[in-house]
């Protein structure tokens, strides 16, 4: 998030697009609902499914999955046509406006034309643009509904364009606010768990960064960008990847096109899985290393608003189990190195020294409330919201983004759109949440089908149906609901017995390399 959780109540208008907030981020959803209830904010929800947050919205619109760029470009066209943009902000803080405007003002983004593309009525598009464009401060929240597309990067850039022309970036209560889905996904990115950057987003291709880490670690480093998770699976499949080391992840259920993933696991020469459990992925491992749970160690998690917070050791790990960092150090030393961390605090010191945005977030300073990066030194109070007064790169760059269709569209054989996501009571691949029986009792596998589609196929509630795509087929009980959009089905991906990712399309965004979990062509058949 460019902004912070406390700022939610400072927005006059909040737009949620591509986030089932009350299911995936319930406490942030509560904050947004509070702001609406207290009359502080007016809410717009754009989501294919009529999510719970839509019940709190002044305007709710259901777009065809994958039409987000068209919808937001249309909003911007209306905003520019009516002069609701922040002209001073555009003049002083942004660049690339003319090129951007030339794209946006094209007839294809008129409300009437976007109604055809998105299924949202032209008058609703105009009302959304008016409410959002006229707001003094508007914030935008999104999650994987924006990113998990072959146009994921375009979608994200479009949210930024929208917030920039409205002057909502670098403003308390505004911002582009992606909601991060896992306890430390932000920290894993910040710490360089990415193929192109060292900790603190220092590019591996920049010589100065390479030298800095070579000096600190007293070694030679590679300046070539590594491969992403989807490319790793492909590499294992085609034999260029010989060994995989998987720490606390379960690609068996989380990666697209499960059949391909399994084939890759079977082919790779040597696979190490480090986890609390024998996960579905670990079944394919050559070695499994037992790791401690969050409650059995200390360290830091970084949350969605960039707040670095301490996790504390509550109980001892079971006998025989080690913390992840201890295991990694053992491997490093067995490979011939000489690491000598005595505790997590030692590693924290190295993070402070090598990661500029974490420079002031020391073990001693974090405290009960944490600190938000960037926090470059020990006098710095942390940064609740980014881009205040000036963008990180100087001027904010507006980029003309053209609408593109998803990779796989419905056709005669596969007439429905399948989209995947989470439910409130389960988490990711279920490794943690499914160990609590009460949660399983509350939420099992399902496929959400619109009343119209269910009626036309003669499917009743709870009836087990078969769902198929070009990649494979699964069965799941039908959940027939008015909340689902006609022509679209939704399957949560938590369940190994009904693995949604056996069905999903592995097509990826060319730059972000994120798979298109939110759109693929599918069909539903009765099983009896």
């Amino acid at each position, binding site marked *: 998030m460019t902004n912070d959780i406390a700022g939610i109540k400072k927005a006059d208008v909040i737009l949620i697009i591509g986030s089932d907030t009350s299911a995936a*981020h*319930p*406490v942030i959803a509560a904050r947004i*609902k509070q702001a609406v209830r207290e009359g502080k904010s007016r809410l717009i929800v754009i989501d294919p499914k009529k999510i719970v947050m839509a019940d709190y919205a002044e305007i709710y619109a259901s777009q065809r999955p994958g039409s987000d760029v068209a919808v937001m470009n249309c909003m911007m066209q209306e905003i520019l046509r009516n002069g609701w943009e922040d002209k001073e902000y555009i003049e002083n803080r942004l660049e690339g406006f003319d090129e951007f405007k030339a794209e946006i003002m094209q007839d294809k983004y008129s409300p009437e034309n976007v109604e055809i593309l998105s299924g949202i009525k032209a008058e609703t598009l105009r009302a959304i643009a008016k409410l959002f464009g006229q707001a003094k401060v508007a914030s935008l929240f999104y999650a994987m509904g924006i990113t998990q597309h072959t146009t994921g990067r375009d979608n994200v850039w479009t949210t930024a364009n929208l917030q920039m022309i409205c002057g909502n970036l670098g403003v308390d209560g505004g911002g582009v606010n992606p909601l991060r889905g*896992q*306890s*430390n*996904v932000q920290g*894993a*990115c*910040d710490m*360089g*768990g*990415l193929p192109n950057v060292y900790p603190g987003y220092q590019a591996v291709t920049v010589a100065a960064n390479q030298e800095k880490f070579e000096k600190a670690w007293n070694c030679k480093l*590679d300046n070539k960008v590594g*491969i*992403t*998770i989807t490319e790793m699976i492909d590499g294992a499949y085609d034999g260029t990847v010989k*060994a995989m080391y998987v*720490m606390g992840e379960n*690609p068996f259920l989380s*990666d697209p096109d499960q059949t391909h993933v399994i084939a890759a696991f079977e082919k790779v*020469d*040597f696979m190490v899985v480090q986890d*609390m*459990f024998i996960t579905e992925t670990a079944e394919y*491992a*050559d*070695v*499994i290393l*037992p790791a401690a*749970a*969050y409650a059995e160690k200390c*360290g830091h998690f970084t*949350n969605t608003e960039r707040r*670095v*917070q301490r996790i*504390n050791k509550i109980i001892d790990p079971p006998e*025989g*189990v080690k913390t*992840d*960092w201890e295991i*990694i150090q*053992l*491997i490093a030393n067995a*490979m*011939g*190195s000489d690491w000598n961390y005595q505790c997590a605090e030692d*590693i*924290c010191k190295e*993070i402070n020294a090598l990661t500029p945005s974490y420079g002031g977030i020391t073990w001693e300073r974090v405290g*009960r409330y944490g600190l938000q990066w960037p926090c470059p030194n020990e006098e710095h109070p942390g940064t609740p919201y980014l881009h205040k007064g000036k963008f990180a790169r100087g001027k904010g760059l507006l980029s003309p983004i053209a609408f593109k269709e998803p990779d796989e569209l419905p056709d005669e054989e596969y007439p429905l759109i399948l989209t995947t996501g989470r439910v*409130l*009571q*389960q*988490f990711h691949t279920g*490794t*943690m949440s499914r*160990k609590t029986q009460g949660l399983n009792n509350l939420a099992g596998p399902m496929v959400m089908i619109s009343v119209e589609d269910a009626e036309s196929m003669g499917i009743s509630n709870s009836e087990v149906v078969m769902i198929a795509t070009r990649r494979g087929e699964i069965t799941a009980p039908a959940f027939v609901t008015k909340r689902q959009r006609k022509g679209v089905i939704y399957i949560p991906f938590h369940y190994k017995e009904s693995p949604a990712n056996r069905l999903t399309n592995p097509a990826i965004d060319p730059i972000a390399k*994120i798979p298109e979990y939110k759109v693929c062509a599918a069909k539903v058949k009765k099983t009896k």
Partner: protein
Amino acid sequence: MIVYLNGKAYEAFPGEQVLQVALRNNVYIPHLCFHEKTGKAAKCRACVVEIEGMPGLKTSCNVPVTNEMRVTTNSQQVLEAQRLVIDLILSSGQHDCLSCEQNGNCELQDAAYYLGIKKPSFQLYDNDYTIDDSSEFISVDRSRCINCGRCIVGCNQTVVNEVLNWGNRGFDTKIVFDTDLPMGSSTCVQCGECVQLCPVGCIIDKRSIGSGRTWELDKVETICPYCGVGCRLEVHVDRKHDKIVRITGVEDAPTNNGMLCVKGRYGFDFVQSSERITTPLIKENGKFREAGWEEAIGLVASKFNAIKKEFGSDSIVGLASAKVTNEENFVFQKLLRKEVGTNNVDHCARL
């Protein structure tokens, strides 16, 4: 501004209620319906005090402070009035501390103890309520309810799930879920905000019943392991049995302000699951066998070194984790970059 409580001066801030100034300065006034988060309600009448210049007794939770205000919280008249209020509450419904899960963590018990009430003086109208344990994680015993309304305010104004409300009138007034449905059949999402706000033993965590009294449990704060909001938790641990008993939200946390969701509050079984692996496993002939750490680490390191030598560093890849700490992710990428010699490190941020 200055406010005098029982003759002693305290600093107060505009907008504060008398009760808030007292509580902030550790001057106890019995109170049941007021909670910092749900605010003033002036329903229970337990917080009555004398305020100079005002007639009669005033509920301190809804009198805003003014400069030089003089408040008495412990005169005979005040204590007698408070005693009668608490006595009447104790006389209605079942408030038998011995059998109550909240014994030692009950605000009604605290008030009765403070006022020296030994047993209820009256025998009032009692509704014959059965315990509603239809929900997975929460149990509701309306015979212990004191109709303070905190849970209703919390459900509607804090988490804004809009499930709890008042039903019926007069002596039959009770808290209801939706249209008086059993909790498990209602639209309740079991976030447990009502559990956290309940001052007595009416709405409680079902799964921790009988697992330890509050004074027997050690409480440690940490961060929730589920989504990226980073809610601050307090984990209640039974040290005698080394067992996690309960999780509550931390009220003053900037991220969650005491709120949690059903996973964060109740989904902690995985930590102490019997399915945890406790020894390294090595696959031989398609089957896993237990191995010592030295053997397992030795095998991993020698394989990595051999593959690196034969096929080059880039033939090895690592998936870091969105569920482990910053420190652990840092050393993971360091292992791949420094020891293996590749930038082939990624994690499921994309997934």
